[in-house]
């Protein structure tokens, strides 16, 4: 077993998990944070995207042991229902999510992008979302939503 102490969404958390446990499984099974999804388990789909120390990570590709002492942000830490992050608000208005399964990953990728680059071009946005697959909505409405936020913010 591996002991892991880390910060998740601003809270100190500890877990003891088998060494092969991925960050994704630890979040979902040990901490009951099911916002990050398992879509492929091999780094292809981005449904498991979280932010570790400010970096976008496919949590299915990172071992739980690797996040010891680090800071993890999951979709659950981004906002609450009555205090939405602007991305969540605009995604809702624009209908950027249908089944929603890709949503937590896409929204975290968008957040990461806007943190780095407050005024991204469409190619910048495409690039940032290149690791997130969506099978229902497609990317047009997501790109529109991210552009809208950037515009609103820079005004």
């Amino acid at each position, binding site marked *: 077993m591996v002991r892991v102490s880390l910060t998740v969404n601003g809270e100190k958390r500890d877990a003891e998990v*088998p060494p*092969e446990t991925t960050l994704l499984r630890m979040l*979902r*099974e040990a901490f*009951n*944070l*099911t*916002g*990050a*999804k*398992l*879509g*492929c*388990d*091999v780094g*292809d*789909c981005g*449904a498991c995207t979280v932010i570790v120390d400010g970096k976008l990570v496919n949590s299915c590709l990172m071992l739980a042991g690797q996040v010891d002492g680090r800071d993890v942000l*999951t*979709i*659950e830490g*981004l*906002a*609450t*229902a*009555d205090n*939405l992050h602007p*991305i*969540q*608000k605009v*995604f*809702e*208005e624009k*209908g950027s*999510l*249908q*089944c*929603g*399964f*890709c*949503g*937590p990953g896409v*929204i975290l990728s968008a957040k990461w992008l806007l943190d780095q680059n407050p005024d991204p071009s469409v190619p910048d946005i495409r690039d940032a979302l290149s690791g997130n*697959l*969506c*099978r*229902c909505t497609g990317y047009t409405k997501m790109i529109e939503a991210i552009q809208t936020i950037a515009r609103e913010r820079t005004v």
Partner: protein
Amino acid sequence: METTTKTGTLVEAEELLRARTHSPLVPLPIEVRGPEPNRQTPAVGQRTTRPDARTHGLGQTKYIDDFYVPGMLYAKIKRAGVASARITKVDTSEAEAMPGVVAVITGKDIPVNSFGPSLKDQPVLAHERVFHAGDGVAAVAAVTEQIAADALEKIKIEYEEFAPVLDPLESLKLETPGVHAPSANIYGHKLIKKGDIEKGFAESYRIFEASFRTQMVEHVPLEPHSSLAQWDANGRLTIHSTLGRITLGRADIARTLGIPMSRIRIIATVVGGNFGGKNEITTEPVIGMLAKKTGRPVKCTFTRPEEFYASTTRHPIIMDYKTGVTKEGKILARKVRLVLDGGAYCSWSETTLGKACILCAGPYEIENLVAEAFVVYTNKTMTGAMRGFGAPQVCFGYESHMDDMAKALGIDPLEMRLRNVLKEGSLSPTSQALHSVVVKESLLQAAKRFGWNVQGAGQGQGALP
């Protein structure tokens, strides 16, 4: 169910949702109107938001794999890995002896080992015979998913392999061994006849022949298939599942488990993409049996590879077109033969076959038509429902054919279509009179909007803006 997270945002989100979707009562009496064929619905042009958008954005929507029930076991299914074989020996003893493994079952443990939305030709777990490489041959329930996966490696199965039937055109031949012998390989057929094609071809200025093929396509829903089974103290089974057609699924589960439908409750929550691929049962009877055997809740979630080889796919179709036209490009006669690769099991093949056959003439007025479709078994991943049920495949066929003919005749491809499209009152391939037909208007509107160059007639290409 332990599903809420510590922050309590789910409760907040639900309250918010309620507030948002609350609308004032509709005053009675409600005005009842008869059908008004050409009236546009007021919904067009309205902007609306999805009621579930809030929880989606917050990551609080719960899909099946997000559920955990105390005491729950994880199931994994061993796949055959051979396309056609007889199972000669099954040894699960080593897997059963592994610490953490609670139960192992094989095909012989399934009370009624066959199901399907139309033909009941699909086993829950292969027993004696394997029909495609994705067939499940054994299932394990263990305390962790990892242990269940490790246990699959310890299950030893011996096969006597046979030459698989992989080519649908081979399968069509009488001398080809039956995939499900003694049943024939052709398990569905449809024939549509209209007018007199011999006469139509005889009067044609030119006759074009072409063959088209489409490939197998997987739905790839972002959420893999998942289900969770629990028996209660009174012998009733509750299954949470990603299943889209729960009533049909319930009948199949009742059949395979040999219990009345009234003892089965299926709960389908939000689905992370279906596209037709979640329209029939997959793991439900397996986890039902494992849960019964262990007396504990059991969950099974497909791996991504399983989505590709153990769930349904879109039918590949081999399409042979023969079309007779006048000098001006008016179609006088058409003959089509479709061969659908059904894979190992029927699933929704009959629906797909029917739709493909009815639609393979395209949205064109064709007085003399023969369309014939066959669906055959092969030792491949089964095909089933997928968006459009055969319509996209034949659309690729008849539109490609149309482009080729337009080019050869020196007619603009849009013009060629406008000369043939269905009109108000036209008869469909099955001789149904059609109403509210706006193919021509739609084509012209589309051509205008994306800047199709009608001037460039005969070039066979559009002007890009």
